[in-house]
């Protein structure tokens, strides 16, 4: 497993990021964690629909997304808000989606990120199509798709990997192996020793990386993107990480796993090792930490306000959402929907 920054903050190889960039991404990690914890609170207050936390996976998402070009396609899931936000998906729309509002799925034109996939695995083939179109249109854009260890059992994972390899499309498959697919442990998901090795069967490179190591994730993703952009085809990245929280707010991990396991993973926290790294280079202070946490909190509160301030959806939006122009049967139903 590739690692550059140990849990105790020691570098084991050359850092791909300078101090300025490391500080910028540390700030993004703090932002992601603040957002995620806020999401759990808002859900408990009844202000969000089901929320799927990603605490523990921040470095996997921030480190990989930081390596993208601004117009690279991203096709991610309900647990990937940090990666989507890094690629320009507006925070208020991420939150709007979680309040249960379709408008949250409609990013601005310049944002090359699809709305989060709710079904598991089906979105990976879309990334292959986007990547393929990029080549046909001579755009030099890469598509990256995010998924978990559970999704690697879905048929669409295999179909997507196979098509991507056969047609050598510029696509990066980024698996966050977070140990658990709701209640099923990684050990019962697949007999493969690693998820990365599944790439061999498809004839593409597979890399296993410490998913809680910002530097290693950034380096690995950068390499995969560079290969894709220069015609080298797809890569499977397995970022080994851990879902410290529940699957969603509708789930109780106490029913299926030992709490000691999560405690063990908290000692491999993806934020803390970067903090130590910066601190040892006099690039972190308590004051700065307080400041970026406060900024994150304010920015998230602002976005929550915007999302909650959206007027309730109308039946017109519901019907108009289906086709470019409404067929007559929907016009009829729309007329009736106004009558209670």
């Amino acid at each position, binding site marked *: 497993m590739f690692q550059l920054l140990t849990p105790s903050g020691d570098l084991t190889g050359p850092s791909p990021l300078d101090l300025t960039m490391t500080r910028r991404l540390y700030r993004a990690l703090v932002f992601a964690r603040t957002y995620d914890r806020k999401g759990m609170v808002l859900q408990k207050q009844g202000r969000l629909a089901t929320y799927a936390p990603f605490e523990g996976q921040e470095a996997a998402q921030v480190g990989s997304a930081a390596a993208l070009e601004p117009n690279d396609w991203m096709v991610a899931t309900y647990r990937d808000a940090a990666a989507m936000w890094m690629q320009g998906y507006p925070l208020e729309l991420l939150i709007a989606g979680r309040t249960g509002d379709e*408008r949250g799925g*409609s*990013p601005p034109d310049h944002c090359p990120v699809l709305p989060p996939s709710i079904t598991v695995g089906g979105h990976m083939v879309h990334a*292959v*199509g*986007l990547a*393929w*179109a990029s080549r046909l249109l001579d755009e030099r854009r890469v598509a990256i798709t995010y998924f978990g260890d559970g999704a690697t059992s879905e048929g*669409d994972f295999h179909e997507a990997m196979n098509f991507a390899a056969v047609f050598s499309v510029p696509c990066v498959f980024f698996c966050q192996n977070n140990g658990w697919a709701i209640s099923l442990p990684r050990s019962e998901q697949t007999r493969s020793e690693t998820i990365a090795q599944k790439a061999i069967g498809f004839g593409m490179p597979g890399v296993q990386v410490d998913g809680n190591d910002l530097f290693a994730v950034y380096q690995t993703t950068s390499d995969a993107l560079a290969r894709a952009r220069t015609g080298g085809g797809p890569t499977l990245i397995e970022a080994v990480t851990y879902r410290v929280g529940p699957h969603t707010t509708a789930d109780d991990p106490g029913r299926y796993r030992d709490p000691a396991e999560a405690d063990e993973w908290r000692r491999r926290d993806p934020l803390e090792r970067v903090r130590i790294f910066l601190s040892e280079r006099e690039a972190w202070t308590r004051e700065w930490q307080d400041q970026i946490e406060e900024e994150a909190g304010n920015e998230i509160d602002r976005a929550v306000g915007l999302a909650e301030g959206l007027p309730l959806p109308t039946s017109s939006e519901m019907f108009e959402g*289906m086709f470019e122009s409404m067929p007559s049967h929907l016009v009829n139903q729309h007329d009736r929907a106004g009558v209670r």
Partner: protein
Amino acid sequence: MAQALTDALDLALAKDHTVLVIGEDVARTGGVFRITDGLLQRYGDDRVIDTPVAESAIIGVALGMAIAGMRPVAELQFMGFSYPAFDQIVNHVARIRNRSRHRFTAAMVIRIPFGGGIGAAEHHSESMEAIYAHAPGLKVLIPSTPYDAKGLLLAAIEDPDPVIFCEPIRLYRAVKEEVPDGWYTVPIGEARVERSGTHVTLITWGAMTKETRGAADLLATEGVEAEVIDLRSLVPLDRRTLVGSVVKTGRAVVVHEAPRTAGFGAEVAAVLAEECLYELTAPVERVTGWDTVFPLKRGEHLYLPSVERIAAAARRTLQG
């Protein structure tokens, strides 16, 4: 009809560089029914693409391409092989516009040869158009003449939303007519009155137009003037033409090859009940395939609606 479809694809590929054809065996062999014959030679393997055998990926990858601005025409070899792609079609293709509130769309066509009567192997004779008509966000077209096949396929390719384009296998080489050269479209959502009559309306689509025409001919020898309507488009449904005809005749027989329960005939009957129940002088009749698995070659005649079954249903509506 096969040639008219090939002609349409040829024109679309020539006119619009974003159009591409993707599916199993569509390039080198020109498709199992040769609908895409010759296109690889003319447009190259970037635009006419043979894929590995994976229907879900064919549709999901085509969707990704459509989101990025291409106009894919995907082929699934038989309707029974569309089921592995059902998740992609219903959960993703049909919904991406709504999920993203128009930010991302799926201007794409999914061609699906369907229906029985050619003695094919199991799973090769399905008529499950109703399941696609039931899924919100899809248009479902079914041509039964060469003219409509070309005009509807070009309309489907021009359409900004996803179209399930069902091609009746039995008619590929059974119906011939001259079709205009060049680009023309048949409007989506308009039924075609195939034959005018005043006594009873026979409503059908796809390959069953053949038997229904035969029934109308038979009924004519008995002095019954049947009106035959080919729906051509299940979604959107041309309720105006349908209801207008039944108001005139007061009698309706719906004919389809698909199984009876929850077949699209049930929707047609419901529309007639909603719109013109009091104009009906007899209950709506359904002549359909049975709620059985489509039989293999030696038993096909036991399943497919026949001229006589359709005529008998029409006669029942005329009693009393």
